[in-house]
């Protein structure tokens, strides 16, 4: 495993590792950032990471369903971004800032 072969022979494992790394990246953004818009972007990052693994599986198992799933995920991501940004606009109108802390005010 620790030979050059691992670098030259690209397989499913590589794509999945990359996908995980990107996912953790996005997750770190969601958990640690203060700016709500950046948090939304991090969520997009996570969704992209998942998309990579979907396409990789689809490719290496010769099944198109994975790509269909990616299609769906993209749509959901676009929808989520639209709604999220609309909420941001509302929040910004009131507080002149989009710190995630302000969302605490939404609790019942």
């Amino acid at each position, binding site marked *: 495993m620790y030979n050059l072969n691992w670098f030259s022979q690209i397989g499913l494992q590589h794509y999945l590792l990359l996908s995980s790394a990107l996912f953790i990246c996005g*997750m770190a953004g*969601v*958990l*640690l950032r203060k700016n709500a818009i950046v*948090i939304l972007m991090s969520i997009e990052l996570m969704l992209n990471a998942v998309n990579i693994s979907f396409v990789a599986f689809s490719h290496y198992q010769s099944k198109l369903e994975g790509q269909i799933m990616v299609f769906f995920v993209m749509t959901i991501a676009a929808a989520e971004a639209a709604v999220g940004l609309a909420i941001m606009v509302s929040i910004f109108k009131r507080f002149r800032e989009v710190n*995630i*802390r302000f*969302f*605490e*005010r*939404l*609790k019942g």
Partner: protein
Amino acid sequence: MNHPLLIAVLILAPLIGFLINGLRYQKNSANLSGILATSAAVLSFFVSVILVSEIFSLPQESRKIVVQFFEWIHVDSFRVNFGFLLDPLNSIMILIITGVGSLIHLFSIGYMSHDHGAAKYFAYLNLFLFNMLILVLADNLLVMFVGWEGVGLCSYLLIGFWFKDSQKAAAGMKAFVTNRVGDAAFLLGIFILFLTFGTVQFSDLVAMAPSVAEVSWWGPITLGTLFLFVGATGKSAQIPLYVWLPDAMAGPTPVSALIHAATMVTAGVYMIIRLNPLFLAAPNTMAVIAVIGVLTAVVAACIGLLQNDIKKILAYSTVSQLGYMFLACGVGAFGAALFHLMTHAFFKALMFLGSGSVIHAMHEEQDVRKMGGLKKYLPITHATFFIGWLAIIGMPPFAGFFSKDEILGMSFQSPYGNAAFWALGVFGAILTAFYMTRLMALTFWGKARFSDKLHPHESPWTMTLPLCVLAFLSAVGGWIGIPHVIGELLPGHPENFLEKFLEHSILPILDLPKAMPTMEYLLMGTSVLLAALSAYFAYTMYLLKPEWPKKLADKFRPLHELVSNKFYVDEIYESSLIQPLIQLSKNIWLYVDVNLIDKTTYVVSDLTKGCGGFVRILQNGNAQTYATYISIGIVLILSILLMR
């Protein structure tokens, strides 16, 4: 004629009167509300007259009007209709209720004219009429129970009508609580009868009543009827539950006349008469009823001897007369009981209204020792009261004579009765004559003992008219039940109309010995003579020789004390029942409620609060914190999956 409509009008007219006066009790003046309520009662009276004439027009065997309004309860096989039944038995009752009720409404207009709550008063009075009509017209025990509770409620409301006086409010409470004891027993009786017969319908119960008497004390019929009788002692003020009635005199006097003399208190008697075949099937119950009845008659009359409040005297007299009715029921003379119920309604309502007139004239003075000589000032009241007096002490040919005599005669002749009942009954009659004469002597005759500043005046016509009508009825009301022995002597040989009328509603007493005329004359003569002697004695004692009562009281000091303190019954109840109950409740409150239940709930609530306080830290509203929880969860689940 449309019977359902007539019965609906009969029952609903007072209810509508109640609703109008009850909703507008702050706006209606005393006169307006009085006229409204009285016209509702009079309407009911007219309708009941029409209905009774309908009953008369039917052939003798089928004198019965049954009306089912709607199905009230339907659980599996158990069905109760909201149904009403009219037969000769309760046609007399509705005539008394609406007739005497109308007169008392009329009287109340004058009596309550200066009261601010008159509209409320008339509303209650109409509500009472409504409930009483339901009670007597019901064709099953449950509907009767509705009326039974309803009249209890009205009685409570009216006794405590001047609730700002805490003593009067307490009297209302006492009446209500005492009635509750009886009502609980009444319910138990209904349950037992339902368990035994599977129905609460009067017609079915009566039809199913066995012809063979139940000998055992613990048989279902004996037990059921005994419980019903305990219910009746509560409502009709018999030993041991009579204590509420004298206190009930705290209410306005017309109320005492209507509810606590003429109608409501007779509900127990009516209920027993209504179920007479059942009671006849339980001779043990009959014996208990007769004994309780005669004891009540004598004991209440004894207490009445030394009371000084004019209304209290009449109240004990009522208890005593109710005792006679129960005695009649107990010896199987249900017709006599109903007869006495009717005549008693006339003369006792008359006397209560008369006392109301006196109290009105004396500006709310009720102590007979501070009256006297009122004959001069209140001629009409005196004349009518005089007739009532003659009726109650049983002087022929006034109403009370016929009914009381029939009861006494039956208690001697009936197979259920014996000489002891008769002797005690006559003793009660003697006492009655004595205290009634005392009341007359102290109130109307002799010298005036009130201050000169008081100028008693005769009451307005709305108050004297009912007195006159009732006096007339007290005089002639007994003539519908003239016994055969006297009827034969009279021209035209009038027969016993009442007995014939009730023939198909009341079972006759089996093996009643054929009455011998000489025997009847002897019994009659003895009781009348003794009563007259007693009345004369009382007249002498309180009018001609006013120093006698004092001397006698000194001579029999302990006896006098005992009687004038009403045999200490209230005190005994207080110390033996009420105080222990209060102590028990207090202890239960302290140890069970405060120390056990409350503390347990406190501990539980503290625990919940603590847990909640801890968990609340987690729920801080920060979206990122929640995301952290999700990731912790993912980590945990993944590691569990991988560890396997």
